[in-house]
């Protein structure tokens, strides 16, 4: 009787473990199936480097270069803003802050991770958008830069939590050794702690980037949605995710436009897959 129970539970757990693999593979197959028929009638190179996205024209054009650049620009900007702040804040939490402060900070950071992206977008549209327009004196506040700032707020908690874990797991003996040799606190942190925790920090950043590339709601609300190749970070842009989200609801099934949106989804999937793969490499290196 007991043995039977064991077997049943074991199989159940095994099935659950397999489920995620099945999900990933079937999602990929579905995306690939829907997207591949698009490339029978539309050149893949023309799709990737085309500068115009006019899906409903008499002669439709499906060029996603502006949206790739848009996604890249917003992601890059958000990283530049978020990574230094997040890493320093992780350092403060795990190395410098007294225990009481540390506990409060940690739970606040985790709370910050729970803010839904639509709320971030809403706050951005009411506060950061008018501020950016006024401060930089540009025609509109709906720009890639605004998106970067709001998205930076969104990924900071992820980066802080994971890098804090990495920093915290640096063995105490290493630090003791450094102090014994007469190193100051800053020297120890810079030369020993950061160096030892580097793979973990890079993995944290990579996971953050993965989340950035896939983020939809906030960028749709605050980056302006203009499928134009931007001259600078202060121009409106449109991201790949926003293109899919804003057009998918309105498209006729099995039309070229519908398949083109799946093709964008495939490109996105490949990009996030590569980013996560790199993050995994760094985590494993440790």
């Amino acid at each position, binding site marked *: 009787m007991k043995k039977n129970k064991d077997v049943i539970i074991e199989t159940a757990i095994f099935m659950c473990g397999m489920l995620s693999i099945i999900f990933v593979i079937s999602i990929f197959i579905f995306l690939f199936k829907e997207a591949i028929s698009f490339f029978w009638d539309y050149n893949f190179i023309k799709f990737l480097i085309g500068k115009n996205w006019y899906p409903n*024209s008499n002669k439709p054009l499906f060029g996603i270069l502006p949206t790739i650049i848009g996604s890249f620009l917003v992601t890059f900007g958000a990283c530049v803003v978020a990574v230094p702040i997040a890493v320093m804040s992780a350092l403060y939490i795990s190395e410098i802050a007294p225990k009481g402060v540390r506990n409060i900070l940690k739970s606040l950071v985790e709370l910050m991770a729970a803010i839904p992206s639509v709320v971030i977008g809403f706050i951005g549209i009411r506060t950061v958008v008018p501020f950016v327009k006024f401060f930089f004196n540009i025609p509109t506040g709906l720009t890639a830069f605004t998106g970067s700032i709001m998205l930076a707020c969104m990924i900071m908690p992820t980066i802080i939590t994971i890098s804090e874990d990495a920093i915290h797991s640096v063995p105490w003996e290493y630090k003791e050794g450094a102090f014994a040799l007469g190193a100051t606190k800053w020297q120890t942190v810079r030369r020993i702690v950061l160096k030892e925790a580097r793979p973990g920090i890079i993995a944290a950043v990579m996971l953050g980037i993965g989340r950035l590339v896939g983020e939809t709601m906030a960028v749709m609300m605050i980056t302006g949605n203009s499928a134009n190749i931007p001259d600078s970070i202060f121009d409106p842009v449109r991201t790949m995710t926003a293109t899919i989200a804003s057009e998918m609801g309105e498209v006729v099934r099995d039309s070229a436009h519908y398949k083109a949106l799946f093709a964008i989804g495939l490109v996105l999937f490949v990009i996030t897959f590569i980013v996560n793969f790199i993050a995994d490499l760094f985590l494993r290196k440790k």
Partner: protein
Amino acid sequence: MRYLKFFLLLIFVFFCLYMQTRHDNHKCISVQIKGSDTMLNLIQALVEKNSKLKANVSITGGGSGAGLASLINATCDIAMSSRSIEKREKILAEKKNIKIAEFKIGLDGLAVLVNKNNPVDKLTLNQLKDIFMARITNWKEVGGEDRKIVILSRESNSGTHIFFKERVLRDNNKNAIEEFSVKSLMMPSSQTIYDEVFRNPNALGYVGIGFINSGVKALSIAVDIDSEYIYPTLENILNGTYSILRPLYLYTNTKQKDIIKTFINFVLSDHGQKIILETDFVPLKCKVKNKVK
């Protein structure tokens, strides 16, 4: 004992499910209406005022394209559309063996909005075309201040987007290939266009005339440089002098439920047309027209 509890629970669940289905059958049929965001409030009002419509009605937006697409995919009963059905959509419907019936229920004017502090208050259709195609990029070229123009447009599947493109950019020429400039910002709804125009003195965008209020300024439009500039009021749309005017349609499957037929008859009746007028759209029937004046 444990099994007994479980058994009772099971019976209870089945009982609930049974009641649920019985309840549904007894009460009503469900009607799905989907399509143009512009017509959302209008159809909502029409459904609410129609006391004979004893059905579970759900109305969702998403754009005219979305409505027609789901009519073709048979996921809705009525599609609201602010443009007439396109050839490629008709072909798709034929492929799926769906015959579509068209009902014109009213008219809508599109207003071009600018910020209240913008000194420009009139434009010709040609100037509008040049602005939306980014051939004119500064307000001073059309008599305003030295500011860059921020073009606001709806997304490419919105009926409003398609109508404005055909009427203003292509001048109703079916073979033309003009498109909105890639520099235009594609806003997800008419409300977001209104919000951005309200806040930003550089912006200009187009919305249905229902959106005009004291917070923003609607432009007077002239067909060409020699003709009169006409402000988009209800009267000017009724007498046809305002130039950016479009029809509103309901599309259904010809094999429809009776309840949908009665609903459409209600919309086309005097009472229905009066509701259309009350929600800032323009009715079709002359009788109601006289009542306005």
